[in-house]
């Protein structure tokens, strides 16, 4: 509007400020990228400092406002059940049915509706695209005989004055073929709480107790029950048993409405004696989904303030011993002291030990979310939008100590009853508190608004670097383009198209590579090492075929002087595609995108053809080559996995087949991380290799 006809006599009017900022950034993009990358990684290390204390968002929960009614009588009932379960015969077949019958009988005595749920073991198939679809279950069941079917026992208490719309579920898994003392204790705890809840007057929602048979795995049993609850299959052969009349039939699948919340209770024996009973909370579900923070806060508050338990969440223990982390903690502590003395309102410091603890917990939280694999059977509930956590309670003394057992059962029972009472108060489902967060301690969390900064700082230099590279490559070629009489516009865009074509071919190839394991899986009797070798060799073979069909990235019609900037165009397109991929992944699973950005962004930005830098032998170029090589090695997914495993677990026992096992576990759980690694990270690495080995 304001720019008139550019006159060589009059000075050009300055462009708008936003455009000026853009040009400034692009011209200083190296400095800007370095600052942003370092800032992003620093922000990640500062996250434990920025963690806030947890608080109960939903006022209706009111944890601990009522005294628990769980008494010694109930604890003794639990003990009685434990004794009768442990006294069962030791033959696996009989035990399975005997325990189920005993539980069913006890549930009926409490006045609940009982039924047995039989399920098949589901074979894990390679279905990586399943996380896109709504229903996690398709396909036909194996027609196994009843001998190999798992048997869940389910009891439902109908709330006397309730309207049956919602239910609270608690799950106690046990191995029916060989039951241990700790599993018997969790059954006893579940039974005593269940029978107490059948007598209380404050019940507004129905209570469902699922005694899950974990002989095929905990997750499989819970997932099978949930599947039959939400999407039963009517179109199947019915069991041939005669329906008996009325309430005595234990084969009818009964339901209790929508589930408000779910708890998975396990009693675990820890080694050695500790000061207090311990409670470990596991919250991660598939693809990094987390339950509402309020549920964890309620459990934590009740455990610590009313029952005197010690609450733990998962930590990466190897990080606790790192020297540089402790040094960093001390530096931060002293910086915060200085800041506080300057202005007493700047309170962001914490002791160094707490900082290291927080970093370890944050790392573990980030890792488990990034992996996309649920950390317990509570993950099955998240697929149906039900908030669930796993609670592992372990007593302070050994389980054999019967005197202490009553105390332990008393505490555990009161905790469970208080949590159920809090969730019972809810009118609406959990919606007030955060769904996207990282835990830095059982009582501190970092929410999405804060941890996104670390990711965005890493992501922002990518588009700017792509724009800078593209503009520099076009500028380099403008002079010869003007010199040649060919149409300059067509020449420029043709080069960009070539780079885009290369990137597209590599991505297509990576899609094929991602689908190869489904074929390799069908080959019987293969070790993981063999599998991965076959996978690698077939991938390379397909790549060579693609190159021969569609043209190698190094072959393009050249014009004079344009070779130098060919790799720049390729790099800019690769960076653009990588930024889009990271952005998309951050919506699906933020933690994967964060860890992926840490690995990928420096690699993409630093990569430089070896031939160009190798020509001049100064220190800067030597550093550049070293960085490139290190990042190239770490960036390769199998190599990176081996490096991390070796560092955390020791060098002994490393196997090339570890990557296959890891990838197999990812796709068995329908994790989107597998797709990210193969479809976004791996092509980016291959393109970096191309640029590194570019003949120019």
């Amino acid at each position: 509007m304001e720019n008139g006809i550019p006159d060589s006599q009059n000075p050009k009017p300055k462009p708008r400020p936003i455009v000026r900022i853009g040009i400034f950034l692009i011209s200083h993009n190296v400095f800007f990228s370095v600052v942003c990358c370092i800032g992003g990684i620093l922000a990640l290390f500062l996250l434990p400092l920025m963690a806030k204390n947890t608080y109960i968002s939903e006022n209706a929960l009111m944890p601990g406002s009522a005294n628990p009614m769980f008494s010694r009588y109930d604890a003794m009932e639990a003990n009685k059940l434990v004794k009768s379960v442990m006294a069962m015969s030791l033959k696996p077949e009989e035990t399975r049915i005997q325990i189920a019958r005993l539980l069913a009988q006890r549930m009926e005595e409490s006045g609940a509706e009982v039924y047995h749920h039989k399920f098949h073991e589901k074979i894990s198939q390679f279905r990586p695209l399943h996380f896109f679809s709504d229903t996690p279950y398709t396909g036909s069941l194996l027609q196994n005989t009843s001998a190999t079917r798992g048997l869940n026992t389910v009891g439902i208490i109908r709330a006397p004055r309730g309207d049956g719309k919602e239910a609270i579920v608690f799950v106690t898994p046990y191995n029916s073929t060989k039951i241990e003392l700790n599993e018997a204790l969790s059954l006893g705890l579940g039974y005593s709480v269940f029978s107490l809840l059948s007598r209380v007057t404050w019940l507004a929602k129905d209570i469902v107790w699922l005694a899950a048979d974990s002989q095929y795995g905990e997750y499989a049993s819970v997932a099978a029950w949930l599947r039959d609850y939400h999407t039963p299959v009517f179109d199947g052969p019915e069991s041939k048993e005669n329906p008996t009349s009325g309430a005595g039939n234990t084969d009818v699948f009964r339901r209790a409405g929508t589930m408000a919340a779910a708890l998975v209770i396990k009693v675990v024996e820890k080694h050695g004696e500790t000061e207090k009973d311990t409670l470990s909370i596991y919250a991660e579900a598939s693809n990094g989904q987390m339950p509402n923070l309020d549920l964890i806060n309620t459990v934590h508050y009740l455990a610590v303030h009313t029952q005197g338990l010690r609450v733990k969440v998962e930590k990466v223990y190897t990080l606790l011993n790192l020297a540089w982390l402790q040094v960093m903690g001390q530096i931060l502590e002293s910086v915060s002291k200085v800041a506080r003395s300057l202005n007493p309102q700047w309170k962001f410091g914490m002791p160094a030990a707490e900082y290291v603890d927080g970093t370890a917990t944050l790392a573990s939280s980030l890792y488990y979310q990034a992996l996309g694999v649920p950390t317990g059977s509570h993950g099955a509930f998240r697929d149906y939008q039900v908030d669930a956590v796993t609670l592992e309670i372990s007593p302070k003394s050994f389980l054999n100590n019967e005197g202490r057992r009553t105390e332990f059962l008393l505490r555990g029972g009161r905790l469970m009853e208080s949590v159920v009472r809090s969730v019972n108060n809810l009118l609406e489902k959990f919606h007030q508190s955060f769904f996207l967060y990282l835990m830095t301690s059982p009582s501190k969390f970092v929410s999405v608004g804060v941890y996104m900064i670390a990711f965005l700082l890493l992501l922002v230099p990518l588009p700017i670097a792509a724009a800078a590279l593209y503009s520099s490559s076009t500028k380099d070629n403008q002079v010869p383009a003007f010199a040649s009489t060919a149409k300059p516009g067509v020449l420029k865009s043709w080069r960009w198209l070539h780079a885009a074509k290369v990137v597209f071919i590599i991505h297509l190839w990576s899609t094929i590579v991602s689908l190869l394991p489904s074929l390799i899986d069908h080959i019987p009797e293969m070790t993981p090492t063999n599998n991965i070798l076959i996978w690698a060799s077939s991938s390379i073979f397909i790549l060579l075929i693609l190159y021969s069909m569609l043209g190698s990235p190094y072959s393009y019609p050249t014009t004079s002087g344009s070779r130098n900037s060919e790799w720049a165009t390729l790099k800019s397109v690769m960076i653009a595609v990588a930024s889009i991929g990271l952005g998309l992944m951050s919506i699906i699973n933020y933690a994967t995108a964060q860890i992926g950005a840490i690995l990928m962004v420096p690699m993409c930005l630093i990569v430089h053809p070896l031939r160009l830098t190798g020509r001049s032998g100064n220190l800067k170029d030597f550093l550049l080559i070293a960085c490139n090589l290190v990042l190239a090695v770490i960036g390769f997914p199998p190599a990176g996995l081996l490096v991390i495993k070796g560092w955390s677990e020791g060098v002994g026992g490393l196997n090339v087949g570890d990557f296959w096992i890891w990838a197999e576990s990812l796709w068995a759980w329908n994790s989107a991380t597998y797709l990210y690694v193969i479809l976004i990270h791996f092509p980016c690495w291959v393109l970096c290799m191309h640029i590194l080995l570019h003949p120019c």
Partner: protein
Amino acid sequence: MTFLQSILFSILLLQLYFVNSNGNDEEFTEELLLKPLPDRKVFAHFHFDTKTPPSKTYGHHHRLFPKAIYQLVQKFRIREMELSFTQGRWNYERWGAFDPMSSSNAKPPGVELWAVFDVSSDQVDANWKNLTQTLSGLFCASINFLESSTAYSAPAWGFRTFSGKLRYGALPREAVCTENLTPWLKLLPCRDKAGLASILDRPSIYKGFYHSQRLRLRSNEFSLDVSAEEPGIVLEQTLTVVLQPQSQDTRSIYSDGRLLHPSWSISSIFGRAVTGRCVLANLSTIFVELESGLVSGLSNLSVDLEAGRLGAYDLGSEGSWSNQGFELSVKPDRVIKEVNSSQGKSFSILYEYSVDKFDDNEPFDLGFIWKLPVAWSCLHSPFHASRFLMGSGNQRGSIAISLRSTGSSGEGFINGGGIVGDVCKVRVDIFQVVPWYVKVYFHTLQVYVDGKPELLKDILEKMHVSPSEDRVSPGVMEMILKFPCSVKSASIVIDFDKGFLHIDEYPPDANQGFDIPSAVISFPDFEPSMNFLDENSSTKSPMLLKLQEKNPVISYTEILLVPLATPDFSMPYNVITITCTVFALYFGSLLNALRRRVGEEERFLKSKAVNQTRLLPRLLAKLRGKQQEPTQSSPSSSSSPLGPKLIIKIILVAGVAIGWHYYTE
């Protein structure tokens, strides 16, 4: 004089006698039925019946009939109406589904209202809306939510057969409390001050497992064929509660593992004893029923139920009455046995007590003490019906109704089920109303019989569908299905999409979800009723008459809770701020662009380029305004050395301030 007065007095008395002995008078009866249930609970059913002759013959002034109800009938021309308030769910498996008591008294949680009007079809909706408002005020409940057309429906034949003039509405989320009970009790002539209603201690009845108060109105005021014998308006008020008596902690377990049922009495479950009858009542009776399953269980233990031993006192009517199985603390006035039962050999027994003999000095406190442990099961309907939601997520789902054969009425199938062709078929009627935001796709209706999908034309005999209209009317589905008698289980599945609501259509607790009211499943082939010997008193008792009526078996399914996607309720604020910002930017830029002249900036720059001044003075000059003359180049050049010095001075002052602050802390 006295002789004249006494003659006049006697004439007056005779007139009163004639008036009273005329069959055409208002009547009020109160009855209570107590029944032990198989799962250690007690079923109590209060039945209050008020009748009044038609106003053509009787007039508009009533002694016993509540005026509020009479005015309701007159104003809205009601032919039949039923309003029920229920808290808790009726457990069909444990409390019975096949007896006439549960068919008429098992209601869905919340409020259910249906009414038939005696007006022309175009006025029915207006009358319904006014009726809901009136009832809402009368019973202190929010029945006025049934006024909007999205809340009620007009079933054609699926619910009752009154074509065109029936309206049905249900509110599943309505809470029932004592504020609803008090106006209901005020409709009784003696209220809750005397008679059977005086034992309704609120804490006791609201502590139960099921509580349902029902009001049923039948009138032929406006029908064309009114006969003198038929009563004009009949108001039937029933209160059904299921209570659990307090059991002793020491449960005695017998050798075969059965538990003794807890003993109870009227004062232990209600907290009070009956202190006499309501003087305005024609009939005041209490029944204790032993259902057929219990009777057969006791007779298997060779207990004689009809002739009991009198207690130790043996003072006639006040002694206890016991046999081997149980003991009643008061001797019953009469033992009524059901005859010609449809259940074959087993029959039920009623013990009748008249409350006339009891008053304040001798309160009536009936106690039931168990002696032998008995386990029995109640009568089941031919199918157990349950309904549930399938699928998860905010986009779609399915409603599934599952029918499971109980096999208990095997003989009943052959007797009750019709024979079509050469195949025995049992008929199931389904009536379901779905709110408009649950958009049901009727073409996805699928029926699975014994695990195999069946073609609809084989199973479905008749279907009436009224598809929902957004924000106007709900979706109504009425079906008649015929299943083969040997069916073990059947499922009816239909898919739906979840709709979006406007932000002001969300209720306050929007994140709980939205309710789909209960579906009504009836089995018209089966009409259980009890038959008693035709004695004088049984024809007068309205409750026994009701038990002898033939009504089809009805069962209500569960309420479904559908979680819908909720918007971020802070979005209106965000939208307002964003819109205002966008408007400000747009108008600002537009005005800016309109204000500028063409080539103004180039001319300004040309004038500046002549001066060749440096950056900072140019900035200072811009701050002071754009009236710099080209001739003022010399003073502007002298201002340049001031720039860097100024900056150094500012930094120095800031450093001193920070150091001062640090050292004085």
